């Protein structure tokens, strides 16, 4: 494995997220999401970023008005497996054609044109972050005019997913090289969703850089990873944690969700919180 240079990660403050949907529109626009005549058809539509509504109203004890709703922008969680130095996300090892891999930037890539559509990766993804093109991606009428030339368009029968807008990353690197900058660590970028967020709830950066805001936020008490209950053991029982990770490869996502709300912490983390 090549030496990791960057470890791009994201932190999303759910207490600041208002569910306005700006990130979803920006993502769709930047990544050439297909446009079908009826995109309210959930089975057919393709999106990389879902603004999911979550609520605690399913709790047996929940009673109006002691309920809450929150919004959770969910995209590919960019897992790295147990060892960040040697990333092994659940989807990568199952791909028979190396259409998905981890680069030296930590981003789980996906090459549409290499994908043979076996959907193993989709089955192995713990976060349902991958979408299969059951239909040929259409771009109705004159909407074609607004398409981004940096993003290739998937064929029917392939799996697609969020790649942290790696087309922007690549462009920034190309620009730097054209300007004579060869040090990759001097180049930064921002994915479309993060640069659109009107409340600044989404933060993007290098998790390898201890001074970056995203590193700082990822270590905060408010930070959690989506349905990753093993994180609890790390604090409460480090011995057991070591045992567990020796036995099993955990997803270890690089997307962190921040919240101070107990119910939301439990819902996202997938485990009961004492505090």
């Amino acid at each position: 494995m090549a030496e990791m240079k960057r470890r791009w990660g994201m932190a999303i403050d759910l207490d600041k997220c208002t569910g306005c949907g700006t990130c979803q529109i920006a993502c769709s626009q930047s990544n050439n999401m297909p446009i079908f005549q009826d995109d309210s058809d959930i089975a057919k539509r393709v999106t990389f970023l879902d603004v999911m509504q979550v609520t605690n109203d399913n709790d047996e004890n929940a009673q109006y008005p002691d309920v809450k709703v929150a919004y959770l922008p969910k995209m590919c969680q960019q897992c790295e497996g147990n060892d960040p130095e040697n990333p092994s996300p659940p989807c990568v090892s199952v791909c028979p054609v190396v259409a998905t891999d981890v680069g030296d930037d930590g981003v789980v890539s996906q090459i549409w044109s290499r994908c043979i559509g076996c959907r193993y990766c989709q089955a192995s993804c713990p976060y349902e972050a991958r979408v299969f093109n059951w239909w040929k991606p259409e771009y109705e009428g004159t909407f074609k005019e607004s398409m981004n030339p940096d993003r290739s368009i998937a064929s029917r029968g392939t799996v697609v997913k969020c790649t942290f807008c790696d087309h922007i990353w690549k462009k920034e690197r190309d620009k730097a090289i054209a300007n004579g900058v060869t040090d990759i660590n001097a180049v930064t970028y921002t994915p479309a969703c993060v640069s659109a967020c009107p409340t600044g709830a989404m933060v993007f950066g290098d998790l390898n850089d201890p001074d970056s805001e995203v590193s700082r936020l990822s270590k905060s008490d408010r930070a959690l990873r989506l349905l990753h209950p093993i994180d609890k053991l790390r604090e409460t029982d480090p011995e057991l944690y070591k045992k567990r990770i020796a036995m099993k490869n955990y997803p270890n996502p690089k997307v962190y969700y921040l919240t101070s709300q107990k119910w939301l912490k439990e819902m996202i983390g997938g485990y009961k919180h004492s505090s």
Partner: protein
Amino acid sequence: MKKLERKDFLKMVGGAVVGTGTGYVFSGAPFQSLQWLVEWTQDQYTPQQGEEKYIQSICNACPDKCSISVRKIGDRAVKVETSNQGCPMGQSLVHVLYHPGRIKTPLKQAGKKGSGKFEQVSWDDAVNTIAKKIDTLRKDGKAAAIVGINESHAGISGMLLDRLITAAGSPNIYEDPCFCSLSKAAVELTQNTEGSIYYDFDRADYILSFGARLLEGWGNAGAMHRSFAGWKDRGVRFVHVDTICTRTASAADQWVATKPGTEAALALGIANILIRKFGKRSSGAQFGRFSELAINQYTPAKVSELTGVKQEALEQLAKEFASARRPIAVTGKGGQGVSSSTMEMAAVQALNSLAGSLGSVVKVKTDKGLGSVKLDSYAKQGLSSASKARGLDEFIASDAKADLIIINGANPVFQSTYGKKLIEKMKEASTVVVIAPLLNDTAMYADYVLPSLSSLEMKTEAGGPVVTPRFKAIHAGDSLIRIARNIDGVKQSFPWKNYTALVSGTSSQVIKSISSFTFPAKMMSKELEEAQKSSAPTSDYPLAMLPYEITLVGDGRGLALPYVLKGLNNTVLTEETLWVLMNPSTADEYSVSEGEKVDLESSRGELDNVRVHLTKTIAPGVIAIPLGFGHTAYTEYATDKGVNPKEIMNNKIDPVSGTADWWLTRVKIS
């Protein structure tokens, strides 16, 4: 005849198979079908390449005028960059620009109004016919039958339509009801000045919102979100009063759950405590009568019973409000679509007056305007012959005759609870002109549809348009200038050749600090009592129906954009059926189960076939229904998706603003 041997038969069959197979292979057919298979599965569209440019511009989607940077590839605009400053509308600008439903040339109704059949006409034809019609009406002394309806925040074109209608001699110029138009009525009544309420959210240290869903498209969404982020950073406490657990209620520091339609009573209950316990006074006129009303009629005990808010919570709210240095009480229930009675607005403004926030963080906003209009004798006669209704809904509901209607960007057939009545008026009128970029519910009943520009095709304060206007569309303001300059007696009020002369300066807002306040105590007492009675459950209609808005859809404007449809989840719209929300306890009472299809009935009519989603985020006895669905015509993406609740919503007209107060409707499940 010789008997056919089995062996020979097999040989013949074998030969035929081999022959056909060989022929098939050599014909090239298999390779052709393989080719088809490959094309069918692998066919990819490749976007055109071109030189990359970033053009600085200003988003015209709302009066907030956020700076944007538009990425262009060759001649194509491909992405709007808002640098954490914009809103979903800004991100959608390219899709509005390249929408396949854009109107390409001026259209003329070719069938009966509402048939959806249009034929193309030239700009000269359309402009001359409309101008001639206005001219004739003026000369016949029927100038007052000319009517203008602006969309909310129409900007330059709105001011020009206003000017055209006035110069032609008609008082009948209206605006799609919105927070600005509603609060204008309240400001005129309570502060005796022209303008709408302006909140300085960035300077406030405490926000108490009475049903104003600030994070759901309320006001100018981009600015509102920036302010919200600022409150989090500065530790400003944000309290939201609502019956439904909406996004705003959950994002707020505290959600105060009230019974439906009791926001005004809650405001008066807080006023009661502010006056009695915290010695808050106002120098405003009729403060004495107001304090009498608040102290005698809205005691904490009574308010607690009315609103369902516990007395301690009420005291706590009053204490927080009283101890804040620059608190704001926000009125205007709703998100993108707002509905509050004038008395409710006045009751909330009374709190601002008591706290001393009027003139400091709660101000009055007006537009600079275009200057005075030169009226000729026809115009003077027309203006003196008729009076103006107080608001759009009051006008539609009245018997006032409309012979020529110009609708600029608005979609009142869909938005107004009097949409059906407006259709009748439009059918009776001899000429109806709709100016819009996309055909909508209202345009179906137009005689002429004039294509207008999307935001990226307009010249802004930042410079020329990002993209040259597509098709034959022109700026709405230019359509109006062209019409006006063709009418004798009107043209002298229109010295401008086109809208670009008006881009800088004229639309900028003027913000006035006015602290004077008149408490409309008598009217408030009467109106609020009536409202309480009319909103109480009846045996015929026991449930309260309240609106809520879906992310990105808002009050319906966003639904024509396919990326907006991508965001709808499976408890909003499935298979073109709309879902409503209900508390499980209410569902038990009426034997409704999750996902069941029901009909909702109010005294005005019935909404067929909505599905029910059970959730404890809704108060018992309440049905929450999303706004913005059920367009009869609004491009192929929005048409016939769900139902439009405005059809059965409350249409009682507010006596001050002349606008239907549709917030709370009593319904039953039928």
